């Protein structure tokens, strides 16, 4: 627990949060490890947690019958995996398959969702941070869509 407390309280993603909220997060956190080839989350399943990736590589994939699994983004150390836990209907939109053995901190999103209903400050702090994650992903997706490498 001490190790988790130290990790979360010094993690840039949670910088600036109140001590009582950080304590709550520590209570909702656990160290997890996934071997290569395993799925951390699957499309359509309930989304009740998110992950701070500490080591390894994870491929966000979408599966198509003709194409099989298609990697749309690779996440690694320092990245945040999962935001569908924040947004109804709380179902994962993609698969997350481990490419290289991955260590992460899993946080109980369902618990945090429920706490946020009564503690709006907590909810706001989480939404602020996840908004930035979403903006970064949207920006990257737009760049991918732009096909900037096409001859002009």
């Amino acid at each position, binding site marked *: 627990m001490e190790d988790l407390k130290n990790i979360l309280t010094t993690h840039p993603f949670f910088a600036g949060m109140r001590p009582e909220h950080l304590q709550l997060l520590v209570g909702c956190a656990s160290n997890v490890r996934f071997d290569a080839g395993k799925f951390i989350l699957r499309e359509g399943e309930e989304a009740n947690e998110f992950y701070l990736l500490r080591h390894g*590589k994870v*491929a966000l994939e979408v599966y198509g019958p003709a194409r099989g699994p*298609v*990697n*749309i*983004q*690779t996440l*690694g*150390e*320092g990245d945040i995996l999962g935001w569908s836990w924040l947004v109804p209907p709380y179902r994962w939109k993609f698969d997350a398959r481990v*490419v290289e053995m991955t260590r992460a901190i899993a946080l109980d999103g369902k618990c945090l969702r429920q706490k946020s209903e009564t503690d709006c400050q907590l909810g706001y702090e989480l939404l602020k941070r996840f908004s930035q994650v979403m903006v970064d992903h949207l*920006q*990257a997706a737009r*760049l*991918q869509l*732009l*096909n*900037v*490498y*096409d*001859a002009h």
Partner: protein
Amino acid sequence: MVPRPYSVRKTQRETADTFTLELVPQDGGPAMTFAPGQINMLYAFGVGEVPISISGDPAKPATLVHTIREVGAVTRAMRNLKPSHGLGVRGPYGSGWPVAAARGADVLIVAGGIGLAPLRPALYQLIAARQDYGRVVLLYGTRTPEDILFRRELQQWNSRFDLDVHVTVDRATGDWRGNVGVVTSLIPRAPFDPESTVAMVCGPEIMMRFTVQELQKRGVAPESIYLSMERNMKCAVGFCGHCQFGPTFICKDGPIFRYDRLQPLLAIREI
């Protein structure tokens, strides 16, 4: 201004639309020496002339190397050249990458698509004097795995213990198991000291703008970021004005610019 005749010694297909020409002077005269980042005007006789960055090793000037993307009539004509065929060369022109000035610092190279070609000479120089630099990191992004340039060399560089090489593609195809995502997404995790890093960036201008944003987020100072700019070029000697970029000419003030000098101009859409 008169093109010097060169012969094609070797052609190499790099990707579906990109190829490399190795050239030697027809007159047997001295080899062209150049700085990494400089360009030549290559003349396909009877067709036209285009500016192309030199992509070879400055320490091996006997063979002049250019990596070219086929985008129009002139580059198509060059693609059809065979060994012993001729073309004209004028140059070298322009400013080079600050390889010497980066001594003692970490060096971050960010390349997008064919942007790796003008950066390759800089990488050759960095590797040749590896002991003079801190960490050397190469971040390379391209559209698909099939568009990866200099694949064999990338693998060789990646196998070195003193180089960090990270390759990513916008879109995975086939059995690609590497990184997927835009090249800017590699910057937050790249192992360099922002306060002591020289960044050299080359690629599509949109990609370079977003790269600069990420570099600045990491704390790299604008005066430590260098971009290779591109505009239409005709005379390459600062007379015709085709490559004018605000108060500068890409042909003689560039193509390599320090970002702090470029910053006000990049926002002006009219130029």
